[in-house]
């Protein structure tokens, strides 16, 4: 396969040396997964570029059990990620929302919410409602959690969730400064992963590249730690400064080249688990570059691919599969 020299819409030249380095990941992906590559467009956003659009109604949506509220109000997000989610702040409301969504043709639901001051998404009162969504309504049900204790791991398992998603941070300073959790550390994230595995959850950890005010700091350590727990999949996202608090908004996100190196590290650390690029990453010309590097680094999927990426995937011999689901469902036998 010939590695690409340039690409329409990219604002600065592609780093050829890096592309060749990334190709190692491409080969790993091909050996373990063949030529299929997934392109996701979950229902919380209308997304249409020239070569990628899913015109059917939403099939997979996000629900927040805290509405727009988050006690942590981390610097990088300030709860804005919750704003587009459907609020369901009581178990009864969650059941009703699930029924309404099911009636509208939605097939899957990501249950998320803001954290308390200990970094926990308080899902405890919702176990029975989650079980109802899963067992009675037959919805694909995933939960995006914060830190996890034994009760949460057990309760979610008994509720029958399909997969548990969790942001994993690999640096104590980031946990203290960005997440406002000075009393927590990387060890707490490690223990959470261990508990989820102990209860036989399908786990799909997320790593936010550039979380430390746009700098790459704990990402490699986070991936190394995650890889010890045999995850079912890994989602990589990139910090979006404009989502954050005012002083964070003007900071540049990590460069596509910095992100690409993290993509490759993830691919090589987890050669047999799907590695996908999630929906959260900055818009703009840099995204085209980032997505191109991701393809060459051998990721299994990209959410909301930049313009031209799906076409390019075909040009380099890959077989795109378009999905209306959340990228974390890559670990489920549904796509």
């Amino acid at each position: 396969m010939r590695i690409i020299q340039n690409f329409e819409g990219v604002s600065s030249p592609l780093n050829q040396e890096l592309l060749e380095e990334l190709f190692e990941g491409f080969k790993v992906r091909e050996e373990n997964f063949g030529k299929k590559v997934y392109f996701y467009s979950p229902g919380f956003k209308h997304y249409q570029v020239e070569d990628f659009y899913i015109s059917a109604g939403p099939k997979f949506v996000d629900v927040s059990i805290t509405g727009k509220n988050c006690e942590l109000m981390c610097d990088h997000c300030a709860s804005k990620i919750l704003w587009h989610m459907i609020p369901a702040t009581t178990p009864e409301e969650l059941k009703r929302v699930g029924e309404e969504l099911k009636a509208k043709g939605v097939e899957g639901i990501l249950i998320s919410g803001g954290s308390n001051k200990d970094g926990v998404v308080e899902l405890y009162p919702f176990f029975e409602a989650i079980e109802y969504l899963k067992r009675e309504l037959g919805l694909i049900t995933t939960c995006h959690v914060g830190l996890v204790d034994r009760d949460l791991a057990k309760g979610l398992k008994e509720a029958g969730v399909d997969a548990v998603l969790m942001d994993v941070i690999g640096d104590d300073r980031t946990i203290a400064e960005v997440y406002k959790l000075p009393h927590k550390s990387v060890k707490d994230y490690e223990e959470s992963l261990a508990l989820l595995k102990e209860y036989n959850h399908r786990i799909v950890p997320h790593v936010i590249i550039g979380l430390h005010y746009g700098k790459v700091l704990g990402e490699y350590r986070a991936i190394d730690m995650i890889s010890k727990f045999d995850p079912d999949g890994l989602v990589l996202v990139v910090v979006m400064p404009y989502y954050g608090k005012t002083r964070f908004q003007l900071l540049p996100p990590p460069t596509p080249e910095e992100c690409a190196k993290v993509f490759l590290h993830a691919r090589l650390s987890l050669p047999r688990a799907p590695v996908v690029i999630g929906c959260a990453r900055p818009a703009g010309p840099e995204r085209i570059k980032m997505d191109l590097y991701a393809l060459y680094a051998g990721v299994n999927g990209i959410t909301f691919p930049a313009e031209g990426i799906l076409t390019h995937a075909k040009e380099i011999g890959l077989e795109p599969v378009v999905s209306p689901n959340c990228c974390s469902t890559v670990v489920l036998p549904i796509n």
Partner: protein
Amino acid sequence: MEKEWEYNGCIIPLDLYYEIETQTWVRLNEDGTVTMGLTDVGQVRAGRLLHARIKDVGKYIKKGKPVASLESGKWAGPINALVEGEVVERNERVLEQPDIINYDPYGEGWIVRMKPADLERDLKDLLYGPQAIEKMREYIDEWDIICMRCT
């Protein structure tokens, strides 16, 4: 004569041609070119715009094909050419700061200026004046839109 119509806070200038489905507008300029942009309703539905791409000057765009693309946190989509023709000017300010469209969709937030190939033909598909107002009202009611401008 009124220069604009307002409904649920949404401003609709009366000297523009509209495609209601895509919420885009066209202004006829004295030099024979046309200017295109997103309506007030369109900017509200999209939300605060974060990224814009506009085709290069000199590109020939067929009617209905993308001449630009815009992206917000909850919406990303094309701006299709309402008239066929050549791109003669891009709004560089919108490229640098796309949310100008949110503040001033008919003024500073224009997107592209084009030299039309067959203006008379293409204008037949667009709505103007009372017809535009009627369809815009239906659209605003159907989607229950209340317009707000970021400041």
